[in-house]
């Protein structure tokens, strides 16, 4: 349940940005979470709902964009999607691969209310 820790860090950043923008309510939060980030998107949304209660971000709608696993394949030499279930290159099925994407855990934007 490290999603609670992550949601708390997320809230700290959002509160700071919202304060700098005049302290109006946060209505939406957009995140990018990679397939290999080791973070459950639903658990993170739920944790954020709990930790944001009574704050400027209470009730904000959290949208999570899943970033795919991307790999540089040692077997076929191509860079492209990885297969997380097979732990292999999705193109040729080879492994080992070098991970080039999918570890993202990023806040991309927030929507705040106008006056």
């Amino acid at each position, binding site marked *: 349940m490290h999603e609670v820790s992550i949601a708390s860090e997320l809230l700290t950043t959002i509160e700071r940005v919202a304060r700098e923008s005049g302290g109006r309510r946060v209505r939406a939060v957009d995140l990018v979470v990679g397939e*290999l980030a080791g973070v459950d998107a639903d658990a993170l949304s739920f944790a954020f709902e709990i930790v944001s209660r009574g704050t400027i971000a209470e009730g904000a709608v959290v949208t999570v964009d899943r970033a795919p696993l991307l790999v540089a394949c040692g077997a076929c030499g191509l860079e492209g999607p990885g297969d997380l279930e097979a732990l292999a290159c999705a193109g040729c099925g080879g492994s080992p691969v070098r991970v080039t994407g999918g570890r993202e855990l990023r806040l991309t934007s927030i929507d705040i209310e*106008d006056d």
Partner: protein
Amino acid sequence: MHTIAIEHEILADNEALANHNRAHFLAHGVYVLNLMSAPGAGKTSLLERTLAELSPRYRIGVIEGDVYGREDADRIEKHGVPVVQINTGGACHLDAHLVHDQLERFDLDQLDVLVIENVGNLVCPAEFDLGETDKVMVLSVAEGDDKPKKYPVMFHVARVLLLNKIDLLPHVSFDVARATRDARALNLDLDVFPVSATTGEGLEPWYRWLEGRIARAKAR
């Protein structure tokens, strides 16, 4: 309503503090190991063996992370090395902040190595950089050879995998070749050492690897 674009790493604060810890360790030439595994894989037993081998030649300090209790710190204390117990009181992992808070309890000028034994968990510790030099993971053969497929993130972030309890191989169904292949599938640089903390089998190559890393940290 209007949108503010941010592009902010969610764990940036932890990352910044981890880098602060790392700079601190680097300045003192201390090699720092973040030891991670599921509960019961044998982290503390492997650490005790490693201390017995290396503590006559290196000055080693230990931070023990557990949800509750100081069982592990009591075990480590018997080896005559400085040890601090962190209790997270529920949290499933250590973070850079928890480690930073304990650093003043060590004289880093008097240490060659700091071992941080993380909370037993195959998921959460992978996400939190502590400022360590290397992440070392322990998987015991009693846990099953399917773990790299089920918990790929942990195997992806580790620098070394210690396959522990190989003395149990005759009694459990565990394919060392399969586990090794899957553990390396998303991690080309992973070094794998099959070992037994009980019999001592396979530990020599691990000690030599560790000595190489300690020497490197000193030289920088």
